[in-house]
């Protein structure tokens, strides 16, 4: 049994979900996603027991392309994030009715398949295929089931697609160029490609374009807020919870070890750019009256911080980034789910029209409160662990970066708590707000449980990812002895 098994379950599940018909589609999707999650856990256990769960098989002879799926702490933890969040996202959609149900659930599973493939693939071209493949389902999910008029939706989604497609094509050119040098697409061959500093710069920039658009780092972020706002809740969760992490993960897996000289050279510029994005996102979030847009900009700020951690090229930065990716994945899914619940009941995304929920639903209020606090990295939550390590890595790089980065926590606390105040507190709203259903409550409880458990005891995950990050750091530092 190897990691490709997870992918097979998800792909087969997507097909089966489509064919069982509208009535059973949601249940089938949930079962298959849980099966994939179980398989991931089982494979992780096998991996920890020292078994070889990777797959390496020749796919195309010329050019040499391998079906190469590699399991290590890094890829497995990201796969775990994907397969753990997929059932949560599916389950959170149970409350809404979608036309063409089976296509909707099948696309979500297909998306999970593509994203898990991106995390596991270590053959550059295979990785690229999965990377692009994940665009197609999210395109249709946002286009067909999103909110707003068809015209607005179309504009937002097409912009998103063309932006990301454009970025990733340059990554493809970089891969093809590397293939000419090494005659292989496998990552460890690419790591040891003998590249001149100038070539490394170009390769680094080609990768950067693809990742900066997907993360997004300013000034490539303009697609983000509109798509988050227009996409259905499940689509937004997939995008912000998992898909952005594909780019953050790829920085560690591909960009830094392949072109380390450029990474060292541009270190301060990149960290500065990412931090600028954090501040920019926070300020925009302060001004938003649209709940989903506010969350989108807060997400922009958080991923900016993660990206900055990646580019510090320190072990703490990388580990903090990985931990924060996992934590942010869960918390952002929870927050968007809460926003979706409010939107369903109040039929609005405007914060000014909300308020007074606490009086009507104390349960929902307390769960939302915990998510908000986790999002602003209160000690005791998973997010605190990641954010602390990130700030520590900034301090190792340059104390001023840490100081500026640290202010974002204050800004974050400010806009999140203000949002909480306007949305939840205040006079009782004229519109009724039904209490959370069992399904909704269960989703919140799972997410909060994960955040608290790993917030109090992050050691297993930290230990799980550290060896792989250390290996990658060796590759990154091979030129500057």
């Amino acid at each position, binding site marked *: 049994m190897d990691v490709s098994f997870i992918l097979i379950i998800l792909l087969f599940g997507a097909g089966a979900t489509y064919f069982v018909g509208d009535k059973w589609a949601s249940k089938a999707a949930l079962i298959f996603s849980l099966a994939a999650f179980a398989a991931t856990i089982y494979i992780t256990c096998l991996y920890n027991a020292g078994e070889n769960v990777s797959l390496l098989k020749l796919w195309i002879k010329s050019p040499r392309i391998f079906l190469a799926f590699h399991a290590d702490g890094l890829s497995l933890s990201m796969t775990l994030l994907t397969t753990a969040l997929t059932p949560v996202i599916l389950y959170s959609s149970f409350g809404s009715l979608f036309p063409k149900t089976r296509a909707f659930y099948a696309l979500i599973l297909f998306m999970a398949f593509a994203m898990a493939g991106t995390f596991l693939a270590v053959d550059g071209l295979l990785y690229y295929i999965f990377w692009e493949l994940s665009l197609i389902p999210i395109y249709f999910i946002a286009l067909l089931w999103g909110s707003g008029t068809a015209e607005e939706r179309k504009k937002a989604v097409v912009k998103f697609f063309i932006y990301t*497609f454009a970025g990733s094509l340059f990554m*493809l050119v970089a891969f093809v160029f590397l293939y000419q040098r090494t005659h292989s697409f496998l990552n460890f061959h690419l790591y040891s490609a003998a590249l001149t500093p100038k070539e490394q710069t170009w390769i680094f920039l080609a990768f950067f374009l693809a990742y900066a658009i997907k993360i997004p780092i300013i000034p490539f972020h303009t697609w983000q807020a509109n798509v988050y706002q227009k996409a259905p809740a499940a689509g937004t969760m997939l995008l912000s919870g998992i898909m952005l992490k594909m780019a953050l993960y790829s920085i560690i897996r591909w960009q830094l070890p392949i072109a380390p000289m450029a990474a060292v050279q541009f270190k301060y510029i990149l960290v500065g750019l990412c931090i600028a994005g954090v501040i920019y996102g926070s300020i925009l979030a302060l001004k938003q009256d649209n709940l989903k847009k506010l969350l989108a900009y807060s997400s922009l700020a958080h991923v900016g911080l993660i990206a900055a951690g990646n580019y510090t090229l320190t072990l703490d930065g990388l580990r903090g980034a990985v931990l924060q990716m996992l934590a942010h994945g869960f918390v952002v899914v929870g927050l968007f789910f809460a926003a979706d619940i409010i939107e369903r009941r109040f039929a609005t995304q405007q914060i000014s029209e909300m308020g007074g929920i606490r009086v009507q639903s104390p349960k929902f209020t307390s769960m939302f409160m915990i998510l908000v606090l986790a999002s602003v990295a209160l000690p005791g939550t998973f997010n605190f662990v990641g954010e602390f390590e990130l700030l520590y890595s900034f301090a190792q790089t340059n104390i001023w970066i840490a100081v500026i980065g640290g202010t974002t926590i204050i800004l974050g606390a400010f806009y999140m708590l203000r949002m909480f105040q306007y949305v939840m507190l205040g006079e009782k709203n004229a519109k009724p707000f039904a209490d959370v259903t069992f399904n909704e409550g269960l989703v919140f409880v799972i997410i909060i449980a994960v955040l608290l458990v790993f917030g109090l005891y992050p050691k297993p995950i930290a230990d799980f990812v550290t060896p792989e990050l250390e290996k990658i750091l060796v590759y990154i530092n091979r030129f500057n002895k």
Partner: protein
Amino acid sequence: MDILIAIAGLGIICLVAEIFNLRKAIVPVTVAGLLAVLGYVGAKICSKNPDILGLGFDERFHGMISSDKYATAFSGLFILLAVFLVALSPEFHKEHKAKLSDFVAIKLFLLTGAIAMVSFTNLSMFFLGIEILSISLYILAASSPKDVKSNEAGMKYFLMGAFASGIILFGIALIYGATGTFSMIDINTMNREALPAWFGIGTVMLTIGLMFKIAAVPFHFWAPDVYEGSPALTTATMSTLAKVAAMAALFKLATTLNAHVPGLLTTINIVAVLSMTVGNLLALKQNNVKRMLAFSGISHAGYMLLAFQFINLSTAQGNLFYYAAAYTLAGVAAFAVILSVCGGKGNEDVYNFNGLGKTQPLMAAVLTCALLSMAGIPIFSGFFGKLFLFGQVLEKGRMILVIIAVINSIISVGYYFKLILAMYTKDAVEEGKQLPVPFVYTAVAVLSMAINIAIGIYPQFVLDLIN
């Protein structure tokens, strides 16, 4: 040559069948016959002992024709495309049943021309091939005589095509003057330095003539009007079979003549860049799907011209063949859907596709896949076609060409998605009752798309046909 005889024979059988009032049998017999020939070609490719089946240079036909791997592989592709195009005919021409035998026979003759164009070893054979192909297309373009646009298309195509043929013939004459022979094998062995200057001039004229046929910029002006005016099935034939046949012939000529003309390769690169860019930019503005595909075809011709940048000839041949197969199969699938959607509508504007995702989900899905393949999104074979070509060009060290091609791929997403958006986000214009899609249209669309995806998942199979 045996393939040529078999297919020409099938064409004659079609005409005879009409006389004996066996109209219903024409298409089934033709399709079966073509599939048999395709099987024969497959056997030729697979056979370990090529002599038995006459693989390679054939003395019996006075060095007119050879069946090397390049020729055989392309012939197989052409026959496969012809099967699809012939299968679409009866449904498309159901208003003119009496002319069906003519249309099918002309398509078969066109196929013989296309095969001659890739398997020639003699310039006179090449010219025969291109003329058979062209004349068949002139007739097919004007085959809807009561439609003014079809008349215009036929006339325009004929004038332009005849002009291009004249240039080709002039080029062949110059090459004959320089070498004293039509035989490619003899020319190949001659010392290039010792040949007079008009050998190079002749090669350039041949190249220009064929650029007309593949509609590369700046020789593309006929294409949009002719594509729009011709009956849709003819447009499908032109943009898939005929274009790729001309492309394959151009590649074979350029590589075997191998004239040392200074700047020829650079010029081809410029033409490739222009074709890609102009084709894509103009396609963005089109509202008629046939016109849009015409411009997209121009840009694909530009991509295929990148194959001229090579280090290893057989790899380049394989890459060109793969790209041609990916492009044409997606093209046939797209046209099958267009035929079924626009069959009774009288025009092919984008709004006809509104709401297709709801009314005919299967056809909409096939068209989406076909367009995604043309745009070069992975797992569809169009992606690998582009990947192999880009890799080959990078190997030659032409980074700038690849960057331009990549930027063009991004532009092309813009207009391919216009159609996809129309299918999935707009509501159908007329809420009338939906006519069921004819079975052959569905079958051809699904089958050609399935082959497209299959060679995307297993590209090695296609590459091995030539390497």
